[in-house]
């Protein structure tokens, strides 16, 4: 089962994780990643994180990543929730969870999805400082390098 959601308002990742696993006693291993807005980035304070996206493309890409993960690893269920819009420090940005009978598969699929969300999903972050200054976040080369380790998976 694959579940992908773009959230345009705050979501509770802990509750989402509880619901994700409720009633599923066949897969005992649940790896997950929760990303939250940090109060600073590169030593600059952040008051608001504003996330825009390309709606027609986002959901399609996220579904594609989840399907690839589902085919590559032994996983029973995948959940991806990604926020868009304006967020404050501490607000959840992203939740990825993979349930499997085997922890190694659950971990690998979760890491794969996080790398893909970072490098191949059409999201853009702008940080707004406490003084109102707005700054578009730059992509980092290290993320692209990290994502290349999945090249054989994506083929």
């Amino acid at each position: 089962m694959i579940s992908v959601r773009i959230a345009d308002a705050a979501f509770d990742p802990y509750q989402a994780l509880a619901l994700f696993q409720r009633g599923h006693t066949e897969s005992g291993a649940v790896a997950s990643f929760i990303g939250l807005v940090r109060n600073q980035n590169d030593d600059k304070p952040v008051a608001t994180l504003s996330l825009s996206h390309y709606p027609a493309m986002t959901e399609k890409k996220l579904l594609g990543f989840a399907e690839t993960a589902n085919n590559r690893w032994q996983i029973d269920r995948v959940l991806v929730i990604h926020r868009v819009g304006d967020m404050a420090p501490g607000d959840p940005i992203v939740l990825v969870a993979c349930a499997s009978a085997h922890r190694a598969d659950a971990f690998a699929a979760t890491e794969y999805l996080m790398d893909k969300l970072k490098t191949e999903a059409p999201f853009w972050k702008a940080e707004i400082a406490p003084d109102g200054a707005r700054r578009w976040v730059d992509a980092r080369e290290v993320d692209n390098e990290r994502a290349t380790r999945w090249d054989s998976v994506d083929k």
Partner: protein
Amino acid sequence: MNEPTIKILYFAWVQEQIGTDEEALTPPADIETIAGLVDWLKTQSDGHRNALSDVSRLRFAIDAEFADPHSPIAGAGEIAIFPPVTGGMR
């Protein structure tokens, strides 16, 4: 001859600098690739020229699939131009 109209989408700082999130344009028939389209778009306004001046800082999608400067645009309904993506988490 009727050249087709293409919907062009802009995101993030490309959108801010051009001043619009979307426009419907009819590029000349001799434009075959994304790179050609970008060169033509730069002639549309100062905002376009500034936003699109450095193609190495831009990424593209044709009908919601990633494309590159050499990708042919024939048959495209929607072309998006944007900076490298920055979703997910560090």
